[in-house]
Structures are given as structure tokens and as C-alpha cells.
């Protein structure tokens, strides 16, 4: 019946530990957050990992595949990546991985900036089981069945709440 608050600090710790176990951090990676929730998560990670280059932010509104159905997102802001993407190792951060369509749009946008050496996908929450496109995250804070609905609020404090049921949300 009640919504469940998730301890975000634990999820962030989780992600940092996994990143440290991988090769990624040794390749002086640069980080990009996907607006809005992904940007919040990326801000926390970027600070915690003390990455030297400024955090990049992309707004995927102009790359969505449902423009001809739902039109433009009225709160679109410019993407802001202050460095050259070409040949860089990119850590791409989003708050929630669900259908995979946001990741598709984000990758398309990144490739319009240049050809990265690699992209590592990091998500705070993976809602499993409802994927519509073949994308999986490399590093996951926590997993959840996709019939559970979650709400991410931020940037400060960054909170993740599991809402009771999907139907309830609708």
C-alpha cells in the first residue's frame, strides 16, 4: 500500500564500486548525463569520482522517435558538451532504463557530436522486462521488475521512490 523510498547513497556507492572494478576509470573517461533525471545522477557520480573534465549534459528531446505522435517537449533545453567526443571513453548516465528508447536517442545524439572510443551505460535503476529495444546497461544501481513504477526527484536531495503499483500510477 505505501510507497517505498530507496536509499540512493547505497545505489551510488554500488555504481562507484562497479566502475572501479572495471577498466573504464583507467581510461580517463568523460561523463554525460541525460536530462533531467540522468543529469542529477551524473552530477553526484561526477563529483564522487572527481572526474577532471566538466560534466556533459544532453537533452534528447530533438532525437525522440515519437515527435510525429506527441510533438515537442516544451521544456527542451540545449545540450551542453564542452569537449570533443571523438575518441573519448564516455560514461553515459541515466536515472532509469525502461524501454531503451531514451538510450537509442542519446546514442544517436552522441554520434552526431563525434565518434566516441567507447560508451559505458550506467543507470541508477533498471526496470527489467519491458524493453522494446536491445539495450542493456553495463552498470546498474538496482534492478526492478518493470510492473513496478518509480519516481525520481532531485537534484538535491536525489530521491527514488517505488510507487505501489503501475495501475495506481496510471
Amino acid at each position, binding site marked *: 500500500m505505501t510507497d517505498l523510498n530507496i536509499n540512493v547513497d547505497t545505489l551510488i556507492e554500488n555504481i562507484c564500486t562497479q566502475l572501479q572494478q572495471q577498466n573504464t576509470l583507467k581510461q580517463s573517461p568523460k561523463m554525460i548525463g541525460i536530462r533531467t533525471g540522468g543529469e542529477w545522477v551524473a552530477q553526484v557520480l561526477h563529483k564522487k569520482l572527481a572526474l577532471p573534465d566538466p560534466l556533459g549534459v544532453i*537533452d534528447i*528531446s*530533438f*532525437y525522440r522517435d515519437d*515527435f*510525429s*505522435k*506527441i*510533438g*515537442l517537449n*516544451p521544456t*527542451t*533545453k*540545449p*545540450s*551542453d558538451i*564542452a569537449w570533443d567526443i571523438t575518441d573519448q571513453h564516455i560514461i553515459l548516465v541515466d536515472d532509469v532504463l525502461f524501454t531503451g528508447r531514451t538510450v537509442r536517442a542519446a546514442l*544517436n545524439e552522441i554520434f*552526431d557530436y563525434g565518434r566516441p572510443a567507447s560508451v559505458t551505460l550506467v543507470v541508477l535503476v533498471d526496470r527489467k522486462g519491458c524493453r522494446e529495444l536491445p539495450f542493456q546497461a553495463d552498470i546498474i544501481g538496482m534492478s526492478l521488475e518493470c510492473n513496478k513504477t518509480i519516481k525520481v526527484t532531485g537534484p538535491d536531495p536525489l530521491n527514488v521512490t517505488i510507487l505501489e503499483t503501475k495501475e495506481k500510477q496510471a
Partner: protein
Amino acid sequence: MIARLSSPNIQLNELGKLHHFLTLEGLKQHHLIEILDTTKSFINPNTNEIKKVPLLRGKSIMNLFFEPSTRTRTTFEIAEKRLSADISSLDIQTSATKKGESLLDTLWNLQAMQADMFVIRHAQSGAAQFFAQHVAPHVHVLNAGDGQHAHPTQAMLDMFTIRKHKGDIFDLKIAIVGDVLHSRVVRSQIQALSILEAREIRVVGPKTLMPENPEALGVHIYHDMEEGIAGVDVIIMVRLQNERMTSALIPSEKEFFKLYGLTEERLALAKPDAIVMHPGPINRGVEIESMVADGSQSVILEQVTYGIAVRMAVMSIIMSNAAQLSQYKAEQVAQTEQDRLQEENA
């Protein structure tokens, strides 16, 4: 006569959103703010770069220029390309209408080539409106300048430039100097500034280059240049439209410069941080001196760059509104069907 050429509503759809973009007349503040905000989202805040995006992929846009244009035509083409649309530009002066085809036949033929949007410039006031009245319901018309009537995208790029440099237009005093009578740009600028509730709009120029009843536009009239630009935040110079003058309205260009040309000394009368704008093409030594046109307060070339983003914003808003309208209609149909089924079951 010109003021009534467009019925205010033909450019809005059933949801009150832009379907065509013909004039600023009859639009609300929120329509203009949406354009200005969307424009911002196309410009990189650090580099002023305008990136290509896949928003209008698969859409077909035709640029019909019945009148010569460099800036407007080129920036429209660049804007369309940066939105990934398929574009065709037709120089109608050298085309079918010369062979006796009527305007509407030309239009319908182009529509049969599956155009989604027409961008039209024409020497006749009301031409864009005329096209908008005759295109199919799914086709959109953008006015790229019609006679002495309107040039709404130019006015919006001017508003964007002002907002970018000076913040909220609400607080500003703006002087428009030059050939007000013949300028569609000025008409649209005055409409935009009024809708955005500029603190004071001044129009400066000789009596012969003013419309008959300028006060009706809600502006302050000055025939003296020094008085007109004293203390303003923004000076917009417009060129003498010699091609539209049917009689000698000014003694000479030299004389005009002496009375109304923007010189460094005159610019010093405006606020120290005032910006100088000009929709182009500029006539150096006629309405503006080179030192000012190329000076540190001039934002003339920035206007050109922002023209790309503003046109991208208008085109994507119109296509977005069309998408939302068809979604809305589909939902209505579904709802009616659901109601009918419920009634049958009851």
C-alpha cells in the same frame, strides 16, 4: 487596408496553436514566448553553435521566393537542413508562372509533390494568407515577407536578439528608425514589441516615410533623430526601401543620412549599453555609418545567426502542433467510440 489583410485566426488550429505563421497580428504573448524559448534550445550556450537535429526527417519543405532575398532565403534553407527536412527552393521568377500558369495552379502542383510546408516570399501584401487559404489542411504556410504587410520570422529573430542582450523586453525603450512606411519588418516588429509589452516603442523618421496614422500603432512618433533615440536601450535601423517607393519621398540619400543616419555621435545619446540592430541589407552611409555598423554595440551579424535558430523553432513548433492535433483528434475518436460501446452495452 494592409492591417486587415490577415484574419487573426486562420493561422491557429482548433487548439489555438500555430498552424501557419503569417503575421504576429492576433497572436498572444504565449505564442511568442514559446518561439523565443524554443529558439534558445537550438543554440549551444557556450559556442552559439546551432547543431543539426533529426526533428523534421521525412518532412518536405518548399521555399517559394517570388521576390529576391539573400538572408531570409538562405537562413530558411539552413534552418530546414539543420532540422533534417527535405527541401526544395524554387525561384519562381524564372519558372512556371512566367509561362502563364496561375499562382494557385503552381501551388497545387507543388502540393501534389507532397510538400508538408511552404515558405513564401511575395511582393504582394497578403500573398502568404492567400496561399494559406488554399492549401490542403495538412499543409503549413510560413510567411517569409509579403509586400509591405508582414515579415514575422524577422521580427521574432529581432525579439530573440533583444532578449538575449537585454533580458525582458517589458523593461525596455526601443527606437525604430528609418523608412517605416514601406517596411513589413517594422510592422511586424511593432506588433511583436506590443505583444511582449515593451515599455516604450518609438518610431523615428521623416513625415513622408510614416504611415498615415502612426499613432494607431501604439507608438511614439519622432521626426527628430536626436530626440528619438535619447535614452533608449535598443536602436533598430531599417533601410530605405527604394524599390517600393513610387515617388520621391526623400530629397536625397545624402540628405537622409544627414538627418537620420546613425553616427557615433548620435549613438552616444542612447543608453551607454544600447545595442544597434538592422535587419539588413545595410546601406552604409545612407542610414548607418560604418563605424557604428561594425562597432562594439552592433549586433547586426548576430541577428543573422539567430535567424537560423528562430526559423528552426517556428518550423518545429508548427510540425509539433500538427502532431499534437492529430493525436488529440485520434483520442476524441477513440473516446466517442468508447462512449458508443458503453451506451450499447447499457
